[in-house]
């Protein structure tokens, strides 16, 4: 473990954080974990929705201060 790539998409608005995540998801290997940092409230609900829809594994989503930390494992 410990292999968690952090994607800093703070201070960008919808669908910026999602598109950032998708860019890195394309490059990641199956089983890898990515952590998305976002300050966009819309993305906080929209990104987990995308993860569910495309079939990746949602690990956690928590707000630390003003920043959402969304962790996802590439499942396919």
């Amino acid at each position, binding site marked *: 473990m410990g292999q968690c790539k952090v994607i800093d998409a703070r*201070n*960008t*608005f*919808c*669908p*910026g954080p*999602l*598109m950032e995540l*998708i*860019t890195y998801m*394309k490059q990641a290997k199956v089983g890898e974990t990515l952590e998305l940092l976002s300050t966009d409230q819309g993305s906080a609900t929209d990104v987990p929705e*995308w993860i569910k*829809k*495309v079939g990746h594994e949602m690990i956690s989503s928590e707000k630390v201060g003003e920043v959402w930390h969304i962790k996802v494992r590439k499942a396919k």
Partner: protein
Amino acid sequence: MARKIDIVCVSGTREKLQMAAMFASVAAATGDTVTVFFSMNALKHFVKGAAGDAPSEGEFGTLMNQHGVPPFKQLFKQAAELGDAKLLPCSMAMDLLKITRDELDPEFGPPTGLTRFLSDAEGGQLLTF
């Protein structure tokens, strides 16, 4: 189940191009089959070298310009690259603007007429901006 979404962009204003780009990028990245047809005032923004700073229609466009909203050109590019969305220029608009395919951004597909577009769009959900 992948949906089929066809988007027509005719307005050259920031808000409409932005909304169309958001639909295109998110839908394509979610696995939907997306085709975007660009005509009239929308197409000129995709001539190579165009800055992509379309005029605002109202307050919201100005607000988007001042904040970290991803530029619509970037979103359309991501739709094509990440989600295989097709970006098609209207052949009539190209004739009137006197531009060739080579003069458009590289993500663009072949000049397309309305008959072809309507035929390809059959059965899909059509959104117009």
